């Protein structure tokens, strides 16, 4: 094939390859910088804020030890795991129920119900009224505030509905004749044949909740012990506050010395799960995007 190309095309191919390699470096570089900084010598790091292509000074895992010994960061990590599990479970339950109901073609009120959901995609009460509802429901300063409000996505419901609607009627009709109710049809027929879309939507929800910080910042006001990792990270990164890394057994001089290192190490422990899973799950993401692009 290659010999049939014109000189111009060959030159283009070379430049294209070079450009894409540079682009790949640009995608990785920021994460690489954080990774290398996280194993740098704390004293060198403090005096230096340049790009870290390799560990600055002697490589050390001291920062990670400091972070993993820190009860505040560990607790935030645990909270995040609870929020991700809880919010994903809750959102999946609502999403599956909605998708199943709205995929029934014989449902008389299907259209108005679908409108009830999709209208919320184009108009909302806004930040303050939503906050007021959450407050009136007494969810402020509880873990539920990060599990229930704002976790269900209409987009995901539509993606799943499209996928459910594509299941051949013959499958569900046969079950109906055998006397199966809707709940049984859902659990024994629809869900088992929809594993791919379920995996995709679980991923969408889990990643969204792992990375979320804003709702926590407005709904958790007096309960620092309920902070998710992202909110603790925000304090460490952006507000340069010591609140998150101080604990009763820590020594203040060590904190000042370790602060820049703690930032990088905390970022690393927050993104390592993502870095580990993403090469394996990215193909599901691709299929999720594709299902979403087919209009049901």
């Amino acid at each position, binding site marked *: 094939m290659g010999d049939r190309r014109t000189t111009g095309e060959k030159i*283009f191919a070379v430049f294209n390859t070079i450009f894409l390699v540079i682009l790949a470096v640009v995608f990785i570089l920021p994460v690489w*910088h954080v990774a290398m900084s996280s194993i740098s010598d704390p004293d060198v790091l403090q005096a230096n804020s340049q790009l870290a292509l390799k560990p600055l000074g002697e490589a050390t895992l001291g920062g990670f030890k400091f972070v993993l010994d820190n009860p505040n960061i560990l607790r935030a990590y645990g909270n995040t795991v609870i929020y991700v599990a809880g919010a994903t479970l809750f959102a999946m339950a609502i999403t599956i*129920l909605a998708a199943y109901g709205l995929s029934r073609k014989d449902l008389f009120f299907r259209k108005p119900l679908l409108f009830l959901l999709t209208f919320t995609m184009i*108009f909302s009460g806004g930040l303050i009224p939503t906050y007021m509802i959450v407050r009136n429901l007494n969810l402020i300063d509880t873990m539920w505030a990060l599990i229930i409000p704002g976790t269900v996505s209409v987009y995901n419901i539509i993606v799943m509905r499209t996928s459910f609607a594509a299941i051949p009627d013959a499958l569900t009709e046969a079950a109906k004749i055998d006397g199966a109710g809707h709940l049984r049809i859902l659990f024994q027929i629809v869900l088992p044949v929809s594993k791919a879309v379920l995996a995709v939507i679980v991923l969408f929800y889990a990643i969204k909740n792992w990375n979320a910080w804003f709702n926590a910042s407005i709904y958790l006001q007096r309960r620092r012990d309920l902070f998710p990792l992202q909110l603790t990270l925000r304090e460490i990164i*952006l507000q340069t506050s010591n609140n998150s890394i101080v604990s009763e057994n820590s020594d203040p001089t060590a904190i000042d010395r370790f602060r820049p290192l703690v930032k990088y190490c905390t970022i690393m422990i927050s993104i390592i799960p993502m870095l580990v899973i993403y090469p394996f799950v*990215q193909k599901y993401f691709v299929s999720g995007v594709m299902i979403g692009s087919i209009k049901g």
Partner: protein
Amino acid sequence: MPTATAAKPKTIQTAKAADELKARKELEKKDRNRLIRRDLKQNYAVYLMLLPVIAYFIIFHYLPMGGIAMAFQDFSFRLGFLGSPFVGFKHFLAFFNSIYFFRLLKNTLLLSMYGLLISFPVPIILALLLNEVRNQRFKKTVQTISYLPYFISVVVVVGILQDFTKSQGLLTQLSVLLGGDGGNLLGKPEAFRALFIGSNVWQHIGYSSIIYISALSGIDQELYEAAKIDGAGRWKQTLHVTLPGLMPTIVILFIMRLGEVMTLDYEKVLLMYGPSTYQTADIIQTYVYRIGLQNGDYSYATAVGLFNSLINFIVIFIANKISQKVGETSLW
């Protein structure tokens, strides 16, 4: 036929027609009622399953819409939703007359427009470039790497951005080459939009290109063969086969993007901005956050938020009208 019916005596015909219409309507109503009854009998289990869904959306989406009433009140917690005094359009007028109104509107619109102009075409270009790569392993590797930033949280992205914009940071050093003074870039109002949109592109380009890449792989290979036989080189093929093949996807995604042009990622703005960059960085939604949740001026903030929601709604409505005309597809 129409002339024949017109020749008949008019009054009798209309009376008859009205009777028929009435009868049919009654029948339809009966049919409808029967249909609904049958539906409820047959599908009550489905409706029961939908009940939590409906409850969720009413509580967390429609009740807040009702809460918009606060925008027309002087809301206070002491008096509550029902007891707070009604003040009409006071808060809206105050916002329109405020010194911040034009700055907020301008910042919101500019950030949206620049975002659309830059973030929209970039994934298409990436997909086209990847499409030209012949080595499939290299292509797959670059693609996989390009998704990486999508998995990183916005808090971390802004944290890294902060590093890169310090006076010794990489981006600051690059800006010096372009004539910058080498100061902290994140604190400069003139750099805000570029940093915001640039980091958005970095984070979303790979993910957004997925849909174009698969549209490209769906183009009929025979078209390329035919073009080759006609003597078209790679560039001509791109122009006459690839781009036309990609066009329907581009049009649909553009219209969808138009629909969310006003929904800026204000959470990211909140992480990035500061008093020194309010001049270009403060947008309507961050203003709502500050005056509402930080200053506790709930009613005024709700009014400002409603203004933003309404503009957004109008833009989506127009985008949908355009899409019905152009793409024969509708957003809803």
